[in-house]
């Protein structure tokens, strides 16, 4: 029952329709709606207008109504490419990319010449990493519009990402050959295209040709640093060591604080860590050229040993401590993995504290030049306090003694307060630690760093309210949801994660889940963020940076920010599976609260109910004061959070299904993270997916066979196998016997 074809619009309405499209593109939503309604008064069934109206309503944040309207539009005009295009755009905005691609393809069938639909389709294909589809789309776009360089570059990018490097290079060359004359030096798009092509040649492994191309085509490229870096790299790869050494020397003149250049130079000179004399000279020369530099004096501490180390460390430490550099300890502590170096440093700095400067090499000379014994003594105490607080050299009473000495001469020092707080933390006294940080904060209320630390220590001590109040001193007041809303808007991952972990400790699993889910949402936004760059970067012409971004986005969720939150979230769902009661009553004894007797439990439930009422009231108040016009990063209106306390999250009937939403990306992106494997084990075991549990166990075991949790999980899996009421499939048993038994602890 096909509806009758809609009447074509009269000329006045036609121009109104053009107006609607313009209004939408310029985000003039109210005007657009007004114009659309004006058309619809004359032609109420006009599908394209209804579709545009749907698109505008969607942009205003009402996705449900938009979809309903779009369906009406499609019913009226099945054959309209506009309606299908809009349908695709709505799906795209709802992040249902597969359906969006289908709709675009349909629209394109109806209107094969449409640039806009073709481009929208291409963008989604690359966002979805449908390389073959993207390649096809880019080819079609280029064939329609050959005179635009970016269409050629785009095809090359498509070929490159699809793994067809030879054709990517060919495409770029083909375009270059159509140019009547070489573009001017100021043409950055051209300059970048040359370096992009060079990177493709190198990626094919043809270093010789890459070097030739670089020398021929990039001589005056404005990105000189890149050219010099590539040249040095190619020369090194080709074994042209002398030239490579020269190239790295030039790079070090440009930037002497970059290890990669030093490493390149060492390799070019054929030096390894045993050529101590040559290395000393090399670093010494660079240090002479860079009297204020750090790398050339700091790196040698890694390859020098024994007395030579002692002498160099002495010079280095005295210079830094005389200048009062706070970060001296942070800058040398990595050497402590070598216990001899650790002991030498301790010995040296203890010596300074005991006034034994003159006995040491260059000590007195240094002292005369800087004349800063005012800075030196406190720097030494501060260094020792940090030293004795550090994991590899810990002696907390000594650390406390030195920090108290430092504080007695400078009671207003923020740094000393921070270190004292850290010492308390290592003593296990989180309350004292938080107090000290807070005291430090009040000494410099305009510094956000110390404010951040104070809030972090408060969270560690489960003072969530105090923490958010502190954070609020630097967040935006107008943000929806107060300081916490601002921290979410600004993707402040550390705070949200720490807040969530604190709620786990307090047994407030709803809020904890809420926070970890927010982290997952932030990663979704970060993934979505690349979308606009698929077209923007082509317009800008910065292709290498774009390709680099794409490759980073491909494994975005391996970031420890994600792993930490996802592991915690999955653990909570496991708890919810084991103790469904947790969804209804707040635990009062932390996560191990199962030992409460019934009276206690009742009391806890009562308290939880009261808390809930109080929170609801606060929430209502907050809503009243909510400012209108809150928008997200794309300027679109923000949706109201309907579950601010995470209660709905908590009351899921399928906690293990929810857990898998975190476990799947964990195992896909961070398989070498033992915690990811271990939490995966817990979920699979409960889902009775024994082979998958075994898979995570084998992975954990390969990462660390001595890990106690892995050991305990192995025993538990063995027990499960032995005590199953229903024996597993014979083939499964065979797999277990072959793969599990060898790792089963005795």
């Amino acid at each position, binding site marked *: 029952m096909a509806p009758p074809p809609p009447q074509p619009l009269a000329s006045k309405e036609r121009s109104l329709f053009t107006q609607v499209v*313009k209004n*939408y*593109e*310029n*985000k*003039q*939503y109210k*005007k657009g709606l007004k114009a659309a309604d004006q058309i619809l008064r004359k032609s109420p069934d006009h599908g394209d207008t209804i579709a545009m109206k749907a698109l505008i309503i969607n942009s*205003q944040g009402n996705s449900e109504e938009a979809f309903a309207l779009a369906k009406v539009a499609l019913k009226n005009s099945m054959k309209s490419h506009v309606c299908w295009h809009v349908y695709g755009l709505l799906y795209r905005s709802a992040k249902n990319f597969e359906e969006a691609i289908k709709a675009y393809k349909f629209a394109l069938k109806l209107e094969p010449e449409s*640039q*806009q639909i073709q481009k929208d389709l291409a963008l989604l294909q690359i966002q979805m990493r449908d390389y073959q589809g993207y390649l096809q789309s880019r*080819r079609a776009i*280029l*064939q329609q*519009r*050959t*005179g*635009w*360089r970016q269409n050629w570059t785009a095809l090359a990018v498509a070929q490159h990402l699809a793994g*067809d490097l030879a*054709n990517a290079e*060919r*495409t770029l060359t*083909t*375009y270059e*050959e*159509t*140019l*009547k004359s070489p*573009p001017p030096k100021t043409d950055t798009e051209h300059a970048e295209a040359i370096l992009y092509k060079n990177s493709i040649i190198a990626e094919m492994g043809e270093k010789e040709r890459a070097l030739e191309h670089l020398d021929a085509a990039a001589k005056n490229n404005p990105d000189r640093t890149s050219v010099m870096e590539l040249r040095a790299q190619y020369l090194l790869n080709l074994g042209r060591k002398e030239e490579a050494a020269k190239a790295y020397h030039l790079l070090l003149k440009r930037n002497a604080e970059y290890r990669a250049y030093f490493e390149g130079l060492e390799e070019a000179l054929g030096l390894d860590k045993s050529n101590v004399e040559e290395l000393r000279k090399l670093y010494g020369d660079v240090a002479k050229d860079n009297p204020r530099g750090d790398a050339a004096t700091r790196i040698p501490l890694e390859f020098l040993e024994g007395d030579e180390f002692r002498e160099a460390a002495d010079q280095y430490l005295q210079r830094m401590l005389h200048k009062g550099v706070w970060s001296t300890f942070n800058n040398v502590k990595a050497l402590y993995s070598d216990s001899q170096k650790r002991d030498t440093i301790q010995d040296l700095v203890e010596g300074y504290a005991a006034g034994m400067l003159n006995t040491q090499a260059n000590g007195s000379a240094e002292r005369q030049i800087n004349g800063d014994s005012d800075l030196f003594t406190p720097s030494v105490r501060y260094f020792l306090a940090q030293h004795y607080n550090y994991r590899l050299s810990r002696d907390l009473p000594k650390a406390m003694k030195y920090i108290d000495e430092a504080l007695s001469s400078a009671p207003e020092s923020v740094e000393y307060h921070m270190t004292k707080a850290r010492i308390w933390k290592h003593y296990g006294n989180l309350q004292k630690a938080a107090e000290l940080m807070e005291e430090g904060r009040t000494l410099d209320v305009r510094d956000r760093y110390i404010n951040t630390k104070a809030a972090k220590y408060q969270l560690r001590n489960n003072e969530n309210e105090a923490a958010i109040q502190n954070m609020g001193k630097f967040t935006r007041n107008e943000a929806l949801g107060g300081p916490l809303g601002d921290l979410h808007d600004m993707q402040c991952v550390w705070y949200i994660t720490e807040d969530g972990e604190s709620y786990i400790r307090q047994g407030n699993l709803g809020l904890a889940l809420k926070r970890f889910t927010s982290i997952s949402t932030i990663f979704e936004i970060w993934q979505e963020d690349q979308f*606009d*760059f698929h*077209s*923007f970067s082509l*317009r800008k012409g910065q292709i290498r940076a774009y390709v680099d971004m794409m490759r980073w986005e491909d494994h975005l969720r391996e970031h420890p920010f994600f792993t930490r939150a996802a592991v915690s979230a999955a653990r909570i769902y496991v708890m919810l599976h084991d103790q469904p009661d947790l969804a209804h009553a707040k635990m009062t004894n932390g996560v191990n609260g199962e030992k409460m007797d019934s009276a206690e439990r009742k009391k806890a439930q009562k308290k939880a109910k009261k808390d809930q009422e109080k929170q609801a009231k606060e929430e209502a108040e907050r809503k009243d004061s909510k400012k209108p*016009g809150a*928008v997200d990063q*794309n*300027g*679109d209106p923000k949706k109201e959070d309907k579950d601010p306390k995470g209660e709905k999250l908590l009351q899921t009937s399928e906690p293990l299904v929810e857990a898998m939403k975190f476990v799947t990306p964990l195992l896909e992106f961070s*398989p070498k993270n033992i915690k990811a*494997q271990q939490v995966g084990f817990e979920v699979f075991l409960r889902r009775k*997916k*024994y*082979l*998958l549990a*075994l*898979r*995570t166990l*084998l*992975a954990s*075991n*390969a990462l660390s066979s001595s890990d106690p949790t892995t050991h305990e999980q192995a025993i538990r899996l063995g027990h499960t196998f032995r005590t199953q009421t229903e024996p597993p*499939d014979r*083939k*499964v048993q*065979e*797999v277990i016997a*072959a*793969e599990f038994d060898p790792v089963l602890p005795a």
Partner: protein
Amino acid sequence: DREDPAPLPTSAEDRKAAAAMSSLERRGGDDDDAATKPNKEIDQEALGKAISRLELADKAGTVAAGEKKTKEKEEVEKRAKIKVDQADVTLLVEELDLTKGKATELLKANDGDAVKAMRGFVRAAA
């Protein structure tokens, strides 16, 4: 006359960021601004040739891809001959959280041997 979207940020610092963000996203066609005009310094004749070469290369690409495909085809045909027990497919779907397609693929890659397929799978992450 941007009436209804976000009220403009009040501070200069914010306006800068907001303007940058909106420059990223362009909704209309992008043919109407100077930066994306076609290059006038192009030799039209050369361009015409380039495009026909591109089309040829495409065909060559398809041929090459075709060759690759025949190899793949052989592989596919070889695999098609491998008999897969539907009960094994069901077992793998159940035990390993795989789709039916993936389970069948995995079985075929292991000559239809379910135990071998499962052993390989549980060991793969280690």
